[in-house]
């Protein structure tokens, strides 16, 4: 029994069918990348399995428990959802934000114990943000903020971390940073679900890749097996080829049609 099992998930938004039957599995310690063209339903899929949006059909189970029945603290303990970009409130420091993440585990009027404070320190350390823990969120760069968002998620001490396009708005250096962090966390035993645009990045960090196309999960498997030139052409309508060598992955794209 995997940490996450989703079958036949359908989501309709404002009358439009966004997801028409998607499947997803996740086991401990694996990093699964969800890829697909714009509008395919990648974000909708992860938001649906996370409980952020109610599916109109389908079954989602977290460690065997039905998502529909999960609320509050139980939900927070099952998975941590890291959005692409969270609003940056004024007057909140990194440590305060991560503490808020930790408070999800407390009873409504319960106090923070020493264990909780240690949990916050742990989350800060694992995400590599202890160095600027006292700074205000508003003063952070894109990459630093993304790390803090991951730290907030880690503070929930859930076995699954779901990140929705964490690198899409970051520059190369910051993206490499965050990608490395996520791979490290997976290596340490965290199950990571990652929505990405960048196919080369997906191929580099993911254990498995799931392709979402037109509201359905098309294929799932090892990056090299799934991201074939044929599939890249059919689904992304691009003449491209994925290569991996010497620890680097690259996407070779015929950007301009040959004359």
């Amino acid at each position: 029994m995997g940490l996450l099992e989703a079958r036949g998930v359908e989501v309709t938004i404002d009358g439009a069918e966004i997801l028409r039957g998607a499947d997803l599995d996740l086991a401990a310690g694996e990093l699964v990348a969800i890829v697909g063209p714009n509008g395919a339903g990648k974000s909708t899929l992860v938001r649906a399995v996370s409980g952020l949006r109610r599916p109109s059909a389908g079954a989602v189970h977290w460690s065997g428990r039905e998502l529909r029945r999960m609320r509050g603290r139980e939900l927070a303990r099952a998975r941590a959802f890291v959005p692409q970009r969270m609003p940056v409130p004024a007057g909140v420091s990194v440590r305060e934000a991560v503490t808020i993440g930790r408070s999800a585990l407390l009873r409504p009027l319960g106090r923070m114990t020493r264990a909780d404070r240690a949990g916050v320190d742990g989350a800060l350390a694992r995400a590599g943000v202890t160095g600027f823990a006292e700074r205000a969120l508003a003063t952070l760069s894109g990459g630093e903020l993304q790390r803090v968002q991951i730290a907030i998620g880690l503070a929930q001490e859930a076995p699954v971390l779901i990140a929705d396009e964490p690198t899409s708005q970051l520059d190369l250096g910051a993206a490499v940073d965050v990608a490395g962090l996520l791979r490290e966390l997976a290596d340490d035993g965290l199950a990571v679900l990652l929505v990405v645009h960048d196919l080369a990045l997906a191929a580099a960090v993911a254990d498995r890749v799931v392709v979402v196309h037109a509201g359905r999960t098309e294929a799932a498997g090892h990056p090299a097996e799934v991201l074939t030139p044929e599939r890249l052409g059919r689904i992304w309508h691009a003449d491209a080829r994925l290569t991996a060598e010497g620890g680097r992955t690259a996407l070779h794209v015929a950007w301009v049609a040959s004359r």
Partner: protein
Amino acid sequence: MIAALVVALLVATGASLALGAVKVPIGEVLDTILGRGGSGPNHQIVAALRLPRTVEALAVGAALGVAGAVLQGALANPLASPDVIGVTGGAGFGAILILIAFPASVALVPVAALCFGLLAAALVFGFAWSGRNRGSTGKIVLAGIAMLSLFTAATTGLLASFPERAPSALFFIAGGLTNAGWEGLETTWPYFAAGGLLAAFLIRPLDRLALGDDVAASLGSRPQLIRLGAGVSAALLAAAAAAIAGLLGFLGLVVPHVVRMAGGTSSQAFVVPASALGGAALLAGADTLARTVRAPLELPVGPFMVLLGVPVFLWLLRKAV
């Protein structure tokens, strides 16, 4: 910072009990408070007039401060205040309806203010939760503005139809406390309590909401429910406050900002209690000034709130920005 607010609160409370139109020696004031008083007019003045009024000032000030804090947190809007959710407009209409059209039933004023205040808030949330984008901040604010305009127009219409009774209504509109004994609190304390309790339970959820709807959902909260809860809490507190003290603006909007700037943090675990303390101190202090500066005349409390609050606000603003 909390310590400074508690000190301010104690000073304001003490001044409110000790000062008034009639000079009561401080010894007698203390005696009365400690239950040792006799039965002379001084004892009556402190026990039956100043004590309930002081407690009212503290309750109303705290309630409005908390209402502003939870609304600003829930709507992520620094200009949010109890007026925004339509409560003050509705409460004003309800009170003036009684004052002007049924002046013999003056005891019903707090009840009418409560009912119409809550009705207005219910309408605002009803509209904001219908249709698309249920419970979004934009919808709540717009619905609140519409409701405020509606009730303000209705109130103006009432006033225009009975201009000879306008003076008693004007006092309510300007906002202020009166020496009406414990009656007001007897009617409204359940609403203060319910609103305050709800606000206490909302402190952590509001902090989560500050990190965005998605992070809040990740942490197991339901953003729309938090906003609704904040709206209900603010409505209860603001309607009860209006029932006692009329349409007092300024406090709910400014006090949360002042404590945020002074405390250097937006953490609701600090802002909500601090707004309660700050609001209570401000109103008790301002009311004391309003009824002593030109005694025996009791001036409206609004200008004194502004007099005490705005310099602090501006000074902190300079430091912060």
